[in-house]
């Protein structure tokens, strides 16, 4: 049996041994001790993976790590808060939209609600959730159209195109004429809607057109708008 002190002396050589730095008598002595000491063998085995990882590191980079700028945390919090609010708004719209297309009684209630919600500026018709079908994988476009006395307000949200992409938006009328609604730039991490407007009445709008430079996406507006 080894005494504790004897083990301790050998043990303090285990680091140099794990790094392959021991030579001669010292190395032979330690190896003989290891032979008869399961505890020290176990300790050596525990150091081995750490020793194997050492070559991955670059000692020139052991200095202080770079720190993120103090405003980054606030920026992230603001981005997430904006997206949470947008989600909530969309949920509310879906709720009102559902009511409007429900039974006749529900529709009457919804009409009153919608007038209340949208300030009664438009023709009383509900906001329209627009569906872009056949989008390429990874690209997401979400748009909602709201009727107003001046025309149509467009809330649009694009995700999955390169940061900095210039997006142009038009509404298409009954005879195929295009009414510009404006432009916006998509930035990575910015999850707010772009809010655009066009003079074309929602009831006369037949399609929403989004041009991202490389591609153009068209979403037809369903029969609900023509009713």
């Amino acid at each position, binding site marked *: 049996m080894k005494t504790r002190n004897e083990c301790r002396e050998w*043990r*303090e*050589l*285990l*680091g*140099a041994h*794990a*790094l392959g*730095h021991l030579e001669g008598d010292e190395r032979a002595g330690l190896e003989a001790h290891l032979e008869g000491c399961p505890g020290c063998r176990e300790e050596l085995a*525990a*150091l081995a*993976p*750490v*020793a194997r*990882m*050492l070559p*991955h*590191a*670059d*000692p020139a*980079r*052991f*200095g*202080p*790590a*770079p*720190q*993120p*700028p103090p405003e*980054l*945390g606030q*920026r*992230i*919090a603001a*981005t*997430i*808060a904006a*997206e*949470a609010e947008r989600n909530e708004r969309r949920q509310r719209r879906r709720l009102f939209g559902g009511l409007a297309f429900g039974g006749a009684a529900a529709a009457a209630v919804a009409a009153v609600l919608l007038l209340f919600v949208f300030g009664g500026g438009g023709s009383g018709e509900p906001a329209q959730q627009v569906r872009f079908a056949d989008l390429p994988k990874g690209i997401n476009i979400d748009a909602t159209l709201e009727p107003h006395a001046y025309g149509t307000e467009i809330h649009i949200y694009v995700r999955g195109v*390169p*940061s900095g992409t210039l997006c142009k938006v038009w509404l298409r009328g009954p005879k195929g004429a295009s009414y510009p609604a404006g432009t916006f730039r998509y930035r*990575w*991490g910015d*999850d707010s809607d772009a809010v655009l407007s066009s003079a074309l009445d929602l009831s006369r709008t037949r399609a929403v057109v989004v041009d991202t430079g490389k591609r153009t996406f068209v979403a037809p507006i369903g029969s609900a708008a023509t009713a």
Partner: protein
Amino acid sequence: MIQLGTSTRGAFSRERDVREAYSAHSGELYGFAVRSLGDSGLAEEAVQETFVRAWRAGDRFDPKIGSLRTWLFAILRNVVIDLGRARAVRPSVAEGGVEPAVEPLDEALQAWQMEEAMRRLGEDHRRVLVETYYRGRPYAEVATELGVPEGTVKSRVYYGLRALRVVLEEMGYED
């Protein structure tokens, strides 16, 4: 009555969770992003995208499966790959557009992890490991320079490796 704060959603879906995770892990995530992207502006973008994606996917985070830190690093890794791709398709480098290799990124993550562990080590321990291992200097020479017996340099190498192991474990590294 819907109570958002106590809903049954995942363990990482509230804005408060994000704030807490940010104060605990943003330094490490940013450090790795700078190391692998080589640009502080891109690194900021990557860290922001990581937390936003994590928040969106908060329902899927299950602390029983792995730590929050590991999960965030996995997301950051994907963000860095996406950013690398976005850079690769820019017109100047589009020719020969090679898919960014995944292997070097994993190596970078391992390297960064080891470097971070080294930074967290006490100065005495880091010093002997740098001198004997990375610079390959003889123990006797290092001992003279530090004004300590050679045996002390050896024992510091031992305790240094042990401390490194503990730090790596704290950081969530599993061998």
